[in-house]
């Protein structure tokens, strides 16, 4: 049984244009399905604004999906009782992108890491203290950091604290929301190594969200490529990186990271516009170099082209590949 299974999950928002304007439907996440096995890493790749974080929030139960079901060990999240939900909160954790905003600036490292423990367990002071020291050792810090504040530590150290908080309850799945993109390149590598080690040590599953295929390549067993709220390609890492099928994946592999924030805003606006203007057909059509008549009429479905390698693109499936 997969650890987590998402079935046709959608999250739709309404956006009103002007005061008297019509309500418009924005499909932030549209009809996506996937599953993740214990001990594996799922890479979720896509541009800013494609719905990666919305999907993560659905998985974390921070927002409820508009439709579809998320199953945790076969049980539907929306039908869980409060004790089961408690168990779920213990089993699924998150590490955010920016360690400076994901740690409360007014709390010491001790209080930050204690929070998950004291929320879920009754524990006395000495036990808590030994547990805290153990956790810090696991992530490569030591007890001298306990009484410090987040602003007294470096970005990498803070990210280690965030990881310590995430693993404090022995979770089974950690969602990593671009955990390295706010860090220096040299620090990125050490954090990725730490995550790899922790995965082996505790048999963790990861969902690694990123826009950087280079980082995802390093850590993922399985990759999903997302565009405008939809999955366009999904498959084992080697397949996706070695033999990408969808035109968008190919573009991503060719593209370099965008250091220019203006470009980033353009991209978001472009995707937003693509979402608003969408009148059926393939969402990627406007940018796609291979657009066909069929792509305008119908929305491509995910089709398994190779073993476990799915793609949603008529050109790839039907078009001639020259």
């Amino acid at each position: 049984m997969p650890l987590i299974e998402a079935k046709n999950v959608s999250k739709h928002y309404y956006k009103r244009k002007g005061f008297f304007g019509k309500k418009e439907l924005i499909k932030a996440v549209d009809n996506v399905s996937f599953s993740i096995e214990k001990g594996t890493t799922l890479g979720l790749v896509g541009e800013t604004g494609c719905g990666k974080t919305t999907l993560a929030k659905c998985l974390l139960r921070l927002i409820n999906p508009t439709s579809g079901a998320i199953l945790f060990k076969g049980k539907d999240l929306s039908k869980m009782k409060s004790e089961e939900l408690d168990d779920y909160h213990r089993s699924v954790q998150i590490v955010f992108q920016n360690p400076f905003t994901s740690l409360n600036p007014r709390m010491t490292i001790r209080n930050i890491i204690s929070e998950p423990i004291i929320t879920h367990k009754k524990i006395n002071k000495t036990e808590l203290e030994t547990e805290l020291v153990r956790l810090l050792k696991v992530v490569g810090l030591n007890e001298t950091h306990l009484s410090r504040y987040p602003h007294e530590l470096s970005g990498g150290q803070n990210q280690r604290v965030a990881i310590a908080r995430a693993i404090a309850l022995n979770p089974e799945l950690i969602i990593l929301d671009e955990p390295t993109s706010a860090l220096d390149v040299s620090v990125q590598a050490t954090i990725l190594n730490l995550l790899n080690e922790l995965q082996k040590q505790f048999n963790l599953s990861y969902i690694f969200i990123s826009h950087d295929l280079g980082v995802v390549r390093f850590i993922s067993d399985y990759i999903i490529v997302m565009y405008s709220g939809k999955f366009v390609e999904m498959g084992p890492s080697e397949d996706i990186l070695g033999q990408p099928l969808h035109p968008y994946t190919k573009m991503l592999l060719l593209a370099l990271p965008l250091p220019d924030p203006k470009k980033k805003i353009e991209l978001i606006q472009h995707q937003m516009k693509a979402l608003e203007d969408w009148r059926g057909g393939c969402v990627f059509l406007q940018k796609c170099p291979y657009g066909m008549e069929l792509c305008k009429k119908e929305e491509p479905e995910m089709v398994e082209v190779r073993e476990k390698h799915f793609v949603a693109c008529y050109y790839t499936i039907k078009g001639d590949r020259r």
Partner: protein
Amino acid sequence: MNKLTLSKETKITLKLIKRDKLAMLSLLIITFFIIVSIFAPFIVPYPSQGEGLPVPEKRFLPPSFENPFGTDYLGRDVLSRVIFGARISLFVGIFVVCVAIIIGVPLGLIAGYFGGKVDDVLMRITDVFLSFPSLLFAIALVATLGPGLFNAMISLSITWWPWYARLARAQAVTIKEQPYILASQVIGVKGLTIVFRHLLPNALTPIIVQGTMDMSSAILAEAGLSFIGLGAQAPSPEWGLMVSTGRIYLLNYWWFPVFPGLAIFLVALAFNLFGDSLRDVLDPKSRKAGGQM
């Protein structure tokens, strides 16, 4: 290791306040009034007169070495009474602001954090309170409760908490989107615990600034209520009451109303200035302009 570590914020704040001359001056005035009011019975020349004992043979003496601020219509030393009055005014200021914060801030944070119906209900209640002019509302309340210092303080607190609820709600709405709040939600921490553990400490800065500024308004409002006879009652050495009883003698015996008036002015000004510079110091934008740290 266990040394007292002030947060970086606090250190910078202290540094900037030390650099701001006006802030230091106002802080000095406030501290002076606080110390004087704590030790009032030991430092005033005539403690019993300060509390209201009349001395008929010494009526309306002008300021002299014996009575630096002169004496009033019952022969009491004005200096002693002004110093005793500081106790009342400072207490009123602190009490009113604290009660308003204790009622308003939790409600505002809860409204902002939970949103939806909770927010609607709480904010409509504050709207009802805010739709009356606050001093008028306070006057109506005192009139119902009966005149007196304590009732005046209660009514001022009741009219003021909605301002803090509004302020706290605005803070909560911005802070609740912070990743550290999301992280706590993911851990499964209950809503109210998040409000008090994470929101409150991070929302406090503008509330403290507002509180400091309101200290002066509270003192003024209380003096105002006493002036029109709804606050402190004779023989209390309340400043507003002293100005009120002294105003008919202003032309002949100016020292009787002028010194308590001056005291009100000084304390109100000091709190206002201090609040002002506290706001400047705690605002990151103006901090940049203040030079590098």
